[in-house]
């Protein structure tokens, strides 16, 4: 009887201590970054995925692939430029057209396709300039309230009858950045800010969003859903880790059409 019990316990112990697989398999799907912009020629960047600290690998080269773009039954063969960059000067992107990508990598056929969105329609701004009082260490007026009164935000509007996605990027164009708040350190990266992708028809830029004086361009991007979803798929936690959404088969990254319109705004010193 004792032997039976001992055997039973030993079996349980072994069963209970069984190890799971120790290391995740390296993901060899290539990373594609390509924005297709009307009027521009095509440019496509390929790269390997970064390895985990515990993974050793050797992946095939990215510079000798036969990459094709098909549009309206015409096949274009992209030319490798080194370091995973591919271009074709004969292919000029046109709004409304569909472009399909295909190549074979590591024994798998990688495919993706996108339609170039239309140029934004009725893109308008509520003002072409605003005045903001500079904040200095000896400043005594209310921040962002020139003359002590409230300032309306800059309202950007556009038409969007099909509820497609738009994103606004605001960029300071000045060479020498003059901060609105004189007490902060000038950082080049903070010359740009944006909103989240929206299916709406307007975006208000508040005066506090501006960091620097001078000319700004207000770019309205008409984007596809796959680009919009990049903003929703940035998990880095083991609790909910899974491969980000992508329109690419056997690959990751972005292959998407973009269209845009641009307005300008001057932020003046009050």
């Amino acid at each position: 009887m004792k032997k039976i019990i001992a055997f039973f316990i030993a079996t349980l112990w072994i069963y209970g201590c069984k190890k799971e697989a120790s290391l995740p398999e390296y993901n060899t799907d290539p990373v594609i970054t390509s924005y297709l912009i009307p009027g521009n020629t095509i440019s496509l960047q390929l790269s390997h995925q970064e390895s985990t600290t515990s993974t050793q690998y050797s992946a095939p080269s990215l510079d000798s692939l036969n990459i094709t773009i098909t549009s309206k039954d015409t096949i274009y063969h992209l030319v490798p430029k080194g370091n995973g960059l591919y271009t074709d000067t004969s292919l000029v992107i046109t709004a409304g057209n569909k472009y399909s990508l295909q190549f074979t990598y590591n024994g798998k056929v990688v495919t993706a396709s996108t339609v170039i969105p239309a140029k934004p329609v009725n893109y308008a701004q509520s003002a072409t300039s605003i005045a903001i009082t500079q904040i200095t260490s000896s400043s005594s007026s209310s921040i962002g309230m020139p003359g002590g009164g409230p300032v309306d935000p800059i309202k950007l509007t556009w038409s969007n009858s099909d509820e497609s996605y738009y994103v606004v990027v605001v960029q300071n164009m000045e060479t020498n950045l003059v901060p609105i708040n004189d007490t902060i350190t000038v950082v080049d990266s903070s010359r740009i800010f944006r909103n989240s992708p929206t299916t709406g028809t307007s975006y208000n830029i508040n005066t506090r969003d501006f960091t620097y004086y001078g000319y700004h361009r207000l770019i309205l991007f008409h984007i596809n859903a796959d680009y919009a979803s990049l903003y929703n798929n940035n998990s880095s936690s083991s609790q909910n880790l899974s491969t980000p959404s992508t329109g690419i088969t056997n690959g990751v990254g972005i292959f998407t059409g973009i269209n845009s319109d641009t307005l300008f705004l001057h932020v003046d010193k009050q």
Partner: protein
Amino acid sequence: MKYIFLLAVVTILFNHADAQIFKKQIKRAHSQLDNIKIDEHFSIENLDTVYNILHDHYGLNIVYDTAYCNSLFFSYWYMATAAPLAIEITTRNNDLSYTIDSTNTIYVKARHVHNIKKKPLPNTREEKNNSALSSLNFTLYGHVVDDSTNESLAGVYVTVKGTSISAISGTDGSFTLNNVPNDTASLSVSYMGYMPADIYLTPNISKTNFMIGLHQAEHILDEATVLANRVDLMRLSGKTISTIKLSPEKLEQIPNVGEKDIMRTFQLMPGISAANESSSGLYVRGGTPDQNLVMYDGFTVYQVDHLYGFFSAFNANAVKEVELYKGGFDAKYGGRLSSVTDITGKEGSTKQFNLGGDVSLLSANIFTEIPITENLSLVAAARRSWNGPIYNWIFNSFNKSSGSSNATGASGQGPGGADNTTKAKSYFYDLNTRLTFKPTKKDVLTYSMFSGGDDLNNSFTVNTPSFLASMGISLNFGTTDVTNYGNVGMSMGWRRTWNKKMTSNTVLSYSNFYSDRNRVTNGSFGELGSTTTTKTGIFEHNNLKDISLRTDHEWLLTKWNHIGFGAFCTHYDIKYTYSQNDSSLLLNSHNTSDLVGGYLQDKFIFFNDKVSITAGMRFSYFGLTAKTYTEPRVALDYDITRKLSFKAAYGEYYQFANRITREDISAGSSEFWVLSDGKTVPVSSATHYIAGLSYETNSYLFGVEGYYKTLNNIVQYTERYSATTSTINYTQNFYTGSGYSQGVEFMAQKKIRKFTGWVSYTLSKTMNHFPVYSAQDFPADNDVRNEFKIVSMYKMNHWDFAATWIYASGKPYTAPGGGYTITLLDGTKENYVTITSKNTLRLPDYHRMDVSVNYHFYNEAKKDVGYVGLSLFNVYARQNVWYKEFTIVSGHVVETNVDYLSFTPNLTLSLKLR
């Protein structure tokens, strides 16, 4: 391993010391009957059977009318109840009374039936019985008090010397002695902790208000008192499979962080995962918390978490008892796949006012019992957290994910140079109220209300630079992140005992779960007075309403055939909206449906009560799918010997309302309830197979149970696999899968004496199959292979000592197979990680020891009126990993551990009037 060894040694030492003390106690015990502890679970047994079992199992000599008692039925769960009290309980509501003579023979008789025929058990002496019962003379009504404080004493034995006529004083100290032979007889009065007294009656005494004063013994807290008044914290049912009963009265014995907690205590039992500091919900046998039906006085509670799940929503001061069915539950319960937690609120005294409360480093808690009339009582309890040092400690530990910023929240960042800070302004609260009204002896009407919630505020604010503050300028902008969630529930119940064979319980209930989250960028700065401010961020609202009417009936057809039947009707109304800014509604779901049905079950008892089989069927019609669902259930109980029993159960279960987790690590994941619609979210189902053996003596319990459970049509929600070349359709993000769970649970419990506790081990495996994640089965997120738990409690006079140790093998996690960076249109770079297979790696093993010590205060009547307690959570500061974060650094994906709570001490002061 060394921890196990250490604990084993401590356990043996305690046991040895404990046994020695107990031997001394026995010698000092005042009554032999007091020392007989009854451990039985009677479920609708006739009283004849009950008395036979008490005779067979415990050697009690009981004289009663067999035919009469055969017509009376009785349900009760004794947990080490002293024999006299056990007998008294059988007489309640049955219009019976009892007496005990000097030979420890117990006489039970009908209060208003004088000519019953007595059928003594074999060991009783009929001659003596007849003479004792026929000595009718006068009835003496009296009251026992402490002679120094005049406070009423409950549980005092008053005996007419030389006869078997005796009584036990009630909670208000009153007693009634029937059949006192003459007015010059003498009474013997005894009570633990007091000097025994002989009192001589005279013809002049008041027969309606006879006062007896007792004098305290020199040393308080006779050890036998402790023995007699012992109430178990937790018990497994000997009769019903996979059932645990918990008495909140002794909950403070278990170490806690801030609050004595019902759900946390259940997590110390086998089969219920303990390694979940971020969830008070129960993971029972591989099930998720939403698969556990939680009922509070008859209404369903949909949210059981406070403060990120570290505390449960139930105030232990307002709870009378809790029963947990880990699986195989009968046809009375439905609507959940895994388990049932049935919570009963306190009724409250109809005689004495009581007031009490607790204060800890986390929260304050107050409760009262108010006897409004002789048959109407009120219990009210309220609790609220306060921002003490522990609160902020826990808040910061569990709020790590909310502070990270990335693409989603980019527009919410303040201008350069200013510091973003998160300040804990959150709190939780709950309120319980229960009215109990007993208009007749057959009817009990109840009204119960529960309201509890959390106001979580994770707002980012921008610090005002000192030079601006000195000029009177304040900055008031940043990201507002406010979440309010909670439950409001109420029920009106009517319980009626129609006759000796039929009882019914009807409950009308309302339950509302709400969760509102606004994580918005506050653009109001600089535009004071402007109404055009745009909000960007996350808006999430979930509102569930459940209006139910249910009626349950028990019909004791014959001694061997008991029928249960009932009907239920629930109207669900569930709304969920999720938008990422004002103009972008990503998910909008509003479903209403009715769930109606009924059940019928029959319990057959065979072979002299050794075997019982309960077979039942539950029928449900669900409006949204327009289908009828049938759920067969069957349970077997076979008492192989008096101590050894075999139990088994089979059941099918459906679930119509599901809680979905919307994962969002950047802003914090959130959970919401949706109704099954048969398409996007199918009706999920489970099948349970359970079998087990238990061996139980008065002192020990050993149990083993095995289970196998299949799960079908379970749903997960993820935004990652959406088809992204067209407009995003978020309703397509529900994915359906299946799974199974299997395991075996071992339990050894020491139930009585000063050193109590249990050791349990669970071996389990929970696998999921979701084609969207993997073609193969993969371990479920909550899969824990080995769990080992030790709970030890030691009581010594005023002191309680307790230690718990939990070991759980690591949970699975998904590690990245790679990562990449994309340059977005605004020039910023975002990192993404990819996976190759789900849940293939394991987090490090979880283990933790908690220790507590309480010092109890006793009033002059020797009643426990409070304690001051010290709890040490995670006493050796084990860094248990909650989850891992992955970042790309220098071309490599680097993982970082995010840990659970480290060593945390807490102080609690608890006081009550009585």
